C-alpha cells in the first residue's frame, strides 16, 4: 500500500510539473510576442541611443532582435538550473521583487482570511438554521448584492464613505510616507490595512457563508441528525455537534482553495489601495511590458493552483474519515 501510494503521488507530481511547464511556457511565449519592453525606453526623455537600449534589453534577455526561441531557452534554463527568474525591465531581480511582494500580500491577506473564515462559516450555518425566516431572506439578498458587486465598486465605495466622513482612516498605500520612527510606521501600516481588509472580508465572508449555508441545509435533513435526536439530543445539540461538524467538511477544502489563490487574486484590492503585492504586480507587469515578471507570475500562479488543489485534498482527507481510509 505504501508503495502504491508513493507511485500515485509521484505520478501526480510529474503531471503537475508538466502542467506548470506548459502553462508557464505558453504564457511566456505570448507575453514575449505581445509585450514590447522597448517602448518603456523609447518613451524616456531624453531618449537613450537605440544601440544602448538594445544592449540593456539584451542583458535582461528582453531584446526583440534576439530570436524568441533563444530568449525562451535562456529564460527557462535560468529557472530550471539556477532558480533565477531573470530581471525586471528596469534591471531589478525578479526573485527578490517576488519575495517582497509575497510578503506584502501575506500581510494583507492574513487578517482578512482569518476573520472571513470564522465569520463566514458561522454566518452561513446560522442562516441555514433559520432558512426562510426574515433574517435568512435578508442575509440572502445582502449576500447576493455583495456577490454581484465588482470588487472595485466595493473598494471605491468604502473609500468614498471614508472621504465623506472626513477621512478617519487613511488608505492610500501601505503606510503614511510621512510617518517617522518604527512605531508610527507600524501603527500607520495597521491603519492602512483597515479598508482593504474590510473589502476582502466582505467578499470572502459572503462567499464562504453561502457555501456553508448550502452544505448545512443538506445536512439538516439527514438521517443521522434524526438518529442523534432519537438518542436524546435536542435539535440544537444535534445540529451543533453532528450537523455542523459534518457540514463543515465540504466547505473547508473550498476555503483553503480560495485562500491560497487569493495570493494572486487580490488584484483589485491591492491595486486600488496601493499595496505592492502579487496581485498588483499581475496588472503592473503587463502595463509595464515586463516580460520576465509576467513569466514569473505565470509560474507562481500555476504552482499556486496546484498547491491549493493538493492542500484542499489534504484538508478534506484530514476532516473526513471516509476519505482517509
Amino acid at each position: 500500500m505504501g508503495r502504491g501510494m508513493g507511485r500515485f503521488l509521484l505520478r501526480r507530481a510529474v503531471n503537475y510539473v508538466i502542467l506548470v511547464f506548459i502553462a508557464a511556457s505558453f504564457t511566456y511565449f505570448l507575453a514575449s510576442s505581445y509585450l514590447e519592453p522597448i517602448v518603456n525606453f523609447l518613451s524616456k526623455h531624453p531618449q537613450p541611443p537605440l544601440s544602448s537600449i538594445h544592449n540593456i534589453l539584451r542583458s535582461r534577455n528582453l531584446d526583440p532582435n534576439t530570436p524568441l526561441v533563444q530568449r525562451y531557452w535562456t529564460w527557462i534554463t535560468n529557472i530550471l538550473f539556477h532558480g533565477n527568474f531573470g530581471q525586471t525591465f528596469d534591471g531589478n531581480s525578479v526573485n527578490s521583487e517576488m519575495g517582497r511582494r509575497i510578503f506584502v500580500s501575506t500581510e494583507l491577506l492574513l487578517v482578512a482570511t482569518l476573520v472571513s473564515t470564522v465569520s463566514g462559516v458561522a454566518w452561513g450555518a446560522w442562516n441555514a438554521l433559520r432558512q426562510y425566516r426574515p433574517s435568512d431572506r435578508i442575509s440572502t439578498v445582502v449576500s447576493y448584492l455583495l456577490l454581484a458587486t465588482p470588487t472595485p465598486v466595493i473598494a471605491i465605495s468604502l473609500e468614498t464613505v471614508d472621504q465623506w466622513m472626513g477621512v478617519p482612516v487613511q488608505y492610500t498605500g501601505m503606510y503614511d510616507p510621512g510617518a517617522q520612527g518604527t512605531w508610527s510606521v507600524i501603527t500607520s501600516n495597521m491603519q492602512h490595512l483597515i479598508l482593504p481588509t474590510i473589502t476582502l472580508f466582505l467578499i470572502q465572508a459572503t462567499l464562504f457563508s453561502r457555501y456553508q449555508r448550502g452544505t448545512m441545509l443538506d445536512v439538516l435533513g439527514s438521517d443521522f441528525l434524526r438518529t442523534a435526536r432519537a438518542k436524546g439530543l435536542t435539535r440544537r445539540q444535534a445540529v451543533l455537534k453532528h450537523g455542523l461538524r459534518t457540514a463543515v467538511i465540504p466547505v473547508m477544502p473550498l476555503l483553503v482553495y480560495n485562500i491560497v489563490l487569493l495570493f494572486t487574486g487580490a488584484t483589485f484590492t491591492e491595486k486600488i489601495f496601493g499595496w505592492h503585492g502579487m496581485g498588483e504586480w499581475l496588472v503592473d507587469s503587463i502595463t509595464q511590458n515586463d516580460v520576465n515578471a509576467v513569466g514569473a507570475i505565470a509560474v507562481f500562479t500555476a504552482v499556486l493552483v496546484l498547491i491549493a488543489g493538493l492542500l484542499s485534498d489534504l484538508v478534506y482527507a484530514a476532516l473526513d474519515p471516509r476519505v482517509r481510509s
Partner: protein
Amino acid sequence: MTQLVPDVPADVLPEEKQKKTRTLSRGALVRRRFRRNRLAMVGVGILAVLLVGAYVLPYFLKFSYTDNDWNALGTAPDATHWFGTNHPGVDMLALTMRGLQKSLVIGLIGGPLTTLIAALVGASAGYFGGWIDRILMWVLELMLVVPSFLLLALIAPRLAGGTWLYFVVLLSAFGWMITARVVRSMTQTLKDREYVLAARYMGVNPLVIIFRHILPNVASILIVDATIQVGAVVLSESGLSYFGFGIQAPDISLGTLIADGQPDATTSPWMFFFPAGFLVLMGLCVAFIGDGLRDAFDPTAAGAKAVVKSIKRAKGPIAGSPAQDVVSNTARAEEGLAS
C-alpha cells in the same frame, strides 16, 4: 418507505383527476414554482426594464453617447443631464445606457456559450470515459492551471481592431471548466441509470444517447448554470475592462465606464456610481433569477450552490472523487470574484 411526507404521484388520483394533473407537466410545474418566487420575478422584471432601457431609451434622449455638451463639462446630475456629465461633457445617462447594452449582450451571449462548452466537454468526458475522458480532463486541468487573467490581459487588447465578440468567446473559453466537471460527474451517474442502460442494450448510438437521454436530463442544471454564468461573465468583463484589458475603445461597457469614473469617484460620484449601480443591479437580477430557477427545478434543493449539491446528491458523499469536485467548486469563486 420511510418517506415522511408521502408523495402524491398523479397516478394515485382517480381517472378524472388525472386529466387535470396531466396539464401540469413538469415544465408547467417549474414555471409555476418560479412565478411564485418573488425575488426571481423582481429580477425578471428589472432585467426586462434594463434591456428595454438600454436599447429604447437612447432614442428618446437629447444627447447621444458620442455628443459632447460643451456647456456642461463634468456637471452633477440636473434636469438636462439626469445622470450628470463626465469631464468631456458627455451625458452619463447616454453613456451608461450604451455601456449597459454592451454588458448585457456580453453576458447574455457569454453565459450560455460558457455553459454550452461545459456541457459538451462534460457530457462527452463523462459518457465515453476511457482515454477521451482522460484527455479532456487533462485539458481541463491545464485550463485551470493556466493563468487566465494574464492570458486574457495579454490577448484582449490585441483584439481592439476586431469585434468585441472575440472577447466574449475568449471569456467563455476560460470559464467553462468548473461546470464541465459538474456535468461530467452527473453524466457518469446518469450513464448507469437504467433508462440509459436500456437504450444502450437496445443498440442506440452513443451520440444519440447523449443528446436524447443525457443532456435533457441535466438541462435544469445547465439552465441554472447559464444564468449564473451571465453574471460571472459580466463580472469578468468589467474587471478586465477596469484595468483596460477588456472591451477596447471605441466600444464602451459598464466596466470601461467604471474605470473612467474611478479617479473622480470621491469628488464626482455620478461618474462612477451610476454605471457601477447598473452593473450591480444587473448582477443582482441575474442572481435572483438563477436562484429562482434552481428552486423551481428542484424544490428540495435548498442551498447556495445547488449545482454543487446536485452532484453530491447523485453520487453520495463518498462515491467518486469529492475532493476533485470540491476543488472545482472553489474555482468558480475565484473565477468571477478575483478580489
